[in-house]
């Protein structure tokens, strides 16, 4: 059963709306951080991997095409 009389009542949370919603906002932020940060980590690792590969190919004389390794 819905614990409130109306939707406005629900958002107001008695006199405690600001406290409750701020706390849940922080919880959402922490969940989003934990969910997203591994993907950012992964992107960085893939970028590093590609840079490493380019460097390795650049040092092989057979495939040197005049491109300066970054």
């Amino acid at each position, binding site marked *: *059963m*819905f*614990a*409130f009389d109306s939707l406005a009542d*629900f958002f107001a*949370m*008695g*006199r*405690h*709306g600001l*406290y*409750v919603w*701020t*706390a*849940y906002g*922080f*919880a959402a932020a*922490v*969940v989003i*951080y*934990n*969910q997203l*940060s*591994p993907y950012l*980590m*992964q992107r960085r*690792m*893939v970028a590093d*991997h*590609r840079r*490493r*590969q380019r460097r390795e190919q650049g040092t092989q004389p057979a495939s040197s095409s005049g491109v300066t390794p970054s």
Partner: protein
Amino acid sequence: MWQSSFWQSSFWKNLVRWFHKWTSPKWFYNLSRPLGAWIGWLALLILVVSLVWGLAFAPIERLQGNSYRIIFIHVPAAFLSQAIYAAIAALGLIGLVWRIKLAFYLAKQSVPIGASMAFLALVTGAIWGKPTWGAWWVWDARLTSMLVLLFLYLGLWALHNAMERPESGDRAAAILALVGVVNLPIIKFSVEWWNTLHQPATLKFTEAPPMHISMLIPFLLAILGFYLAAVAWALKRTRLEILQRERRTQWARDELDRLGGNV
């Protein structure tokens, strides 16, 4: 007699083989992927159900009004921050004693998750404290020992990043984690040993919870949801740690190619 036959039994040998496989980083990498995905989706489902239930459908609390609804995130976050710390210390010990690399990787990548949970417990506690006690923060035993826990997490992360060789960071962090275990009983018993504003534990193994069932179910579900989410995040992060450490091996290169989308 019995003992020697036990150690030579196929049951024991299979157990050892299974253990070695599981603690091999590559094996763990492949097996944890589907496992982590399932746990992650289950966590999302349980978290949404429990938090919507707690916010909108659990009845209002007689004394605290609606501010008590913060409990559905505050207590799971506090639980998790301590459980993850205990896990990090245990994994550190395993890594130090049996030299299992995977234990170190899991321990390291659990640090940011535990830190975020300690942070969330402190912040939601402060927000809850204001309407309930009239203060955002008091220097009492429970709050201070939780703050120490957050600092321990930050110290662990700093140690991992300070060392040039990641293996040195693993060992240093494991030792700090083991020393810091002392803080866990202090957090737990702080509400009994000292006079404190903080209310005693809501859940005890020895007593029936003082909560009504309509609040208790979403509360327990929220704890379960946070636990599962933390496991899924730890698996994902540990897989990346494995790739990072093994980046010079062929399988890790192939996997990095696959993740980069050029297979």
